[in-house]
Structure formats: C-alpha cells, structure tokens
C-alpha cells in the first residue's frame, strides 16, 4: 500500500548509502528528497516539514556514532520518527465492559463506511462476539438497502429504521433491542457528511448523546490528500472520535493521510480496509507500516500470517533466501507448497520485500499455474532441484512424462525459475529491470 512511497525512499537511501561520510549538506539534500517523497505520498505539507526537521535534528545530534554508516544512521532515525508519528503500538477496539457496546462509524461521503461496518461485524463475530448493525444513513439513496444486503450476506442482524423514524429515534431503539436480544456490539453505519455541514455534524453529536458510544471511529479514504487534516480535526472537534480507519488501501495510494491524521489529532489508526470482500480488514500496525515505508517489506506480517501454516523460522529462512538469492528449485517448491497452505497468494506476495515492484511490473498471479509448476518440480530428482543446470534434453523428457506435462511446459518452468533467480540477484544488487513475470 505504501509501495510508491517505499520505492521513492529506497532511491533516496540508495543514494545515501553511496555517500562515504554524512555531511550536513548531503544529509540535507537527502532529507529534501524525503520531504518530496512524503508530499507525493499526500502527507500534509506542514506535517512533512515538521517531520523532516525533526529527523534532521535527531540525525545531526547523533553523528558521532562510529559503528554505523552515515546512511544507516539516517535510515534509523527516519524509521524511528515514522513509527513515532504513526503511533507506537497497534490498538484494536477497546475491550467493552458492559454490553451492548455501541460503535459509531462516521466520515465523509464515499469513504467506505458501509463496507467497513459490515467488515467490522464479521471481524467481531470471528472473535466470538454477537454484533448487529444499524442502518443510520437515511440520506443517500438506497444506503439502507446496501447495508441490509451486505449484512444479510454474512448473516448479521441489520436494524433498519421504520418509515418516518429518524436516526435519533432509531438509535436508542436499536440499543434497547440489542440488550434484549443479547447482541453485544451495535455498529451504527451513519450517513456520509461534510465536516463543514453544521446541521449534519450536530446530528452526530446528538446521536452520540443518545446512544453513549463505546467508541467512535472515523473512516478516512486512504487516497485522501491535504484535506485529511481539515477533516480529521473537524471530526475531532465535534465528536472527539476514538480512532480512525483507513480504507481502499488495496489500491496504489501512498496513504500519507495516515501520517497527517496522526499528526493533527493524535488519534490511533485502528484498522485498514484492503478490498471489497467482507474479510478484507486488517488491524493497523504502525511499526510494520513504517518498515513498509522504508522498503523493508512487511516481514512481520508475513511471519504472522505464515505462522498459521508454517512456523515462523521457516518463513524467515525463506525470506532470507529470497533476499540472498541462494534460491534453488527445492526452495521454490517448498515455497509454492507453503504459499498454497497460506491462502490467497496475492495478499502474501505483497508482503515480501521487492515484490510490490514485480507487481507493478505487470506480474499477475494465477493459482492454477501454481499446481502445474508444482507437478513439474515434483518430478525432478533432488539433485536436479538443487542444480537445475544439469537438466538436459533427456532429463526434460523424463520430467515431462513424470509430471504428465510436455517438454515445453518443463522448459517454461525452468526458464521462469532461472528468471526469478536472476531477478532476485538483481534485486539484491538493486537493479530492477526486466521483471516481466513469475510462474504463479
């Protein structure tokens, strides 16, 4: 999600790594690049300015350290400051003491509130809770139907205002009903509104009074530009919301709004929404996001996801191999197997450092191709897997026969494998040309 920013920063730091010694001047040049990258990522210009001067101060103060290269030192500081700005640790919803806990979901028009409401219900239920949703958007045509259809599709109870009933009437009724029916979370999908629309904003304060929410979540489009600071501070002033949700981060928006929001409100970002499917919701991890921004890849995320299928050590080993390019067909097969166990490849591959770039280079993933590749590799001897250069014509024929494919298919797999291997080496050396495809 922070792909673009990441690649920009990578360029900057590559430059920095090239410097023998960090002088005040060349650090300033690099920090100017950092500022540019942040601006292109939609970080508010004031926030970006502050950020850069803080990093500068920090980095200059630490110049004495001998054990690090100058570049490493600056990277370290930028990373630390990014984490600091994004918030130190992940915060999900606050635990609720007395049910039903009411959550108000608020934000501008079109930010993704309705989809998020349903996703949050699914998320809570997965944790053993019994959530219900309330359609509190009486403004947008068919908004109620939209929520109803989404909630029905995942078997969540949706309370819909009766004809003529206002949001302020339906709200307390929903909470009362939840107490009776034993729903422990009540999620209000409110109408999108402009933060400068006084009438609509005051409706929210009134609703807040009436239903005493456990939490108020501000939903912010991840593509938001400089205006993020205005929106966030207006909603903070009126509602003093508890946390924010960034949506549509499955696209290529750089997501600088996350930094802006944190900087002006200090409110935590609790979730990120990453797709139209109703399970495409993730808890926000500031540290991972900061790593991602810095081009370290989301290794932690990878390990965590992989943990359900493989143990963390092997994932790390894989990660190491990927980055060191002592990558054999054996590893390749191993990886394909794990990847298959771990579920949607797309999600996973995105977390591997460098793969964001391959995707941008036009890589697409096909799960069926994966099965075919696996069959071919399975028909090779261990020696062949470790040293594929020995696979000559007759071996190819044998492998083709053994895997029920053709020699062309085997050729293709080998070609692709060599291609990846080369690519990984290039990645290691920092060149990234010719990334045309991967076999899966």
């Amino acid at each position: 999600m922070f792909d673009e920013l990441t690649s920009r920063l990578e360029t900057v730091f590559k430059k920095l790594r090239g410097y023998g010694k960090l002088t005040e001047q060349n650090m300033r040049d690099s920090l100017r690049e950092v500022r540019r990258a942040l601006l292109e990522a939609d970080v508010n210009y004031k926030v970006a300015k502050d950020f850069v001067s803080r990093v500068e101060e920090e980095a200059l103060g630490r110049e004495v350290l001998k054990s690090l290269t100058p570049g490493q030192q600056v990277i370290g500081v930028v990373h630390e400051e990014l984490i600091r700005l994004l918030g130190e640790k992940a915060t999900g919803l606050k635990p609720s003491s007395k049910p039903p806990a009411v959550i108000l979901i608020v934000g501008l028009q079109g930010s993704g509130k309705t989809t998020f409401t349903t996703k949050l219900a699914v998320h809570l239920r997965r944790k053993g809770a019994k959530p219900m949703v309330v359609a509190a958007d009486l403004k947008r045509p068919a908004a109620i139907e939209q929520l109803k259809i989404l909630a029905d599709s995942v078997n969540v109870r949706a309370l819909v205002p009766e004809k003529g009933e206002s949001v302020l009437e339906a709200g307390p009724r929903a909470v009362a009903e939840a107490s009776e029916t034993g729903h422990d979370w009540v999620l209000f999908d409110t109408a999108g509104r402009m933060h400068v629309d006084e009438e609509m904003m005051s409706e929210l304060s009134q609703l807040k009074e009436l239903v005493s929410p456990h939490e108020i979540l501000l939903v912010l489009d991840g593509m938001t530009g400089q205006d993020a600071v205005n929106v966030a501070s207006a909603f903070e002033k009126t509602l003093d919301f508890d946390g924010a949700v960034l949506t549509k981060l499955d696209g290529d928006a750089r997501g600088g709004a996350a930094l802006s929001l944190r900087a002006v409100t200090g409110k935590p970002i609790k979730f990120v929404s990453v797709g139209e499917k109703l399970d495409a919701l993730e808890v926000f991890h500031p540290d991972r996001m900061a790593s991602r921004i810095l081009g370290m890849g989301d290794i932690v995320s990878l390990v965590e996801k992989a943990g359900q299928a493989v143990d963390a050590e092997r994932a790390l080993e894989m990660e190491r191999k990927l980055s060191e390019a002592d990558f054999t067909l054996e590893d390749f097969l191993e990886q394909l197997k794990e990847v298959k166990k771990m579920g949607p490849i797309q999600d996973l591959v995105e977390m591997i450092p460098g793969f964001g770039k391959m995707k941008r280079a036009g890589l697409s993933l096909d799960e069926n191709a994966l099965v075919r590749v696996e069959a071919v590799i399975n028909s090779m001897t261990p020696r062949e897997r470790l040293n594929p250069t020995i696979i000559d014509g007759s071996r190819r024929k044998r492998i083709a026969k053994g895997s029920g494919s053709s020699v062309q298919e085997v050729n293709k797999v080998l070609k692709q494998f060599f291609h990846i291997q080369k690519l990984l080496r290039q990645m290691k050396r920092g060149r990234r040309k010719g990334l045309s495809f991967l076999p899966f």
Partner: protein
Amino acid sequence: MLSRLRAGLRRTRDSLLSGIGRILSGRADSEEVMIDQMEEFLLSADVGVSTSEKLAQKLRTHLREGGAGAGPDLLALMKKEILDVMKRPLAESAPGGRPHVTLVVGVNGSGKTTTVGKLAKYYADRGEKVLIACSDTFRAAAGEQLEVWAKRAGVDIVRQKSGADAASVAYDGAEAGLARAASVVLVDTAGRLHTKVNLMEELKKIRKVLARKIEGSPQEVLLVLDASTGQNALIQAREFGSCMGVTGIALTKLDGTAKGGVVVAIASELDIPVKFLGVGESLEDLVEFDPIEFADALLSEENSPSPLS
C-alpha cells in the same frame, strides 16, 4: 448555476485565503520567500510537488526577466499560469452516431452514481431525451440507488439483476436508447480501483459493446474524481485514461474544504480537461467547469465571500 458554484467554491476560497492573505501581507519578505510560500500554498491545495514546483519556477523566470514585483502582482501572475494550464480548448466530442453516450467511470465512492443523476437532470433541462443504464451490477443496492436518481431527474432507466454482466446492461442501454430514440445515454459503472486488472478489462468490454451497438460511442468517457483525493488522482487519471481514453473529468465534493488542486496537475501532465463540478448532494448541484472561475476562486484576493453567492 453560477451562484451554486460560487457557494461551493467559497469555502475553498476561504480556506485558501488564509494562505494567500499570508503571502500578500508578506511584510518585508523577499520575493524568493513569497514564491516559496506560494509554492507551499499550491501544495496545500493538492496541486502536487512537480506541478507546484513548475509553476513556482515560472514565477521566478518572470521575476528574473524583470516582470512583476509585489504580492498582488505575483498572485495575478500565478492565476495566469494556472489558467494557462487549465484553459485547454475543450476537445470537440468526436462526431458519432446518436444517441450521445457518456460512460461514467472512477474509483469506489467518488460520486459516479450521484453525478449520473445530476447529469440526467442537466441534459433533460436542455431538452434532451435521456436514458440511464446501470452497469454497476456489483455493489449492493447500486441499482436501487440509481433508480432513485432516475426518478428524481424524471428519466428512463435500464437495469438488470444484481450480479448480471455489466457489459450486457450497457448493451441493453444502447439498444433501449436507440429503440426509444433517446438523444443522451448515461452509463453508470461500478467503482473500481485502477489497479484491478480484471475490472479494468470489464470496462474495456463495456466500451466495446457500446461501440458495436452505436457507432462512435461512447462519445464521452467521464472520469469522476473526488476533490479530496490527493496525488493518487493523477495516477487514476493516467490509468483510466490509458485503458479507456478518458475525455473529461467530473470533480465532485467541492462543497467541503478540499481544493481539488490535483486537476491542475492532471491538466498539466495528461491534458485531460475538467468538464463538470459537483458541489453538493442535490440534483442541481452540478456546474459546468469554467477555468476562469476556477482559477479566480482558487487564488481569489477577495477577503469576503463573493457577493454573487
């Protein structure tokens, strides 16, 4: 109409004013400082780094050539530069068969459906016979939403069940447009991120189906952009543009505080003109884009809201 635009843009102007005011009151600041501030001001309006730098550079060149001096002069110059970028002759819609088909595209939640509703009214008011086709068969209740807008605008609508093939609705729309002798057909589509390859392919298919049914259509491919979107809008314009050949932009939600300055970058880099502005949630909240008004509103020196509003 004008007053609506102004009302919508007033907030934009107000929030810009603090910035411009700052520049104008530039006490004893040097020109260089004022230009830096101007650049920052453009950044704060989402114009983006490259375009802001480019514009600032032009000011510097002017100054070096002994042009302007004080704050107001600089402002007038900047306005002219922005106007230069935004004032491209509107590409004549390619002559095509009738009805005139507008295909409306964009990312999720940008305001496509609302814009289709407003456009229906806009054309109906001008005596056109309008028909709407709902090719958003994906989002829950998208059809119901559009149906409400069609009713409000008093025009016909063609739709199918949720989950139906989007291109086949477009086909129905074109066919119904011909059969009912409509002069304008508006095709609403599901929101999609430009990064989703298969969904972009679906758009191409819709386009192809329309062209097959009505020669030269769609005459207009309108990209709907949310004014609060930052630099990603530039990528959206580029991607939708290269996939679909976008002929114009509708910039929505200008009734908030977002400045929508990224359209300056889009016009500068991609040459895609803005055609309509969305300034609210009612049927009439659509205005034709006027570059002069826009540049004026963006860089107005006035301190009070426009008397026209």
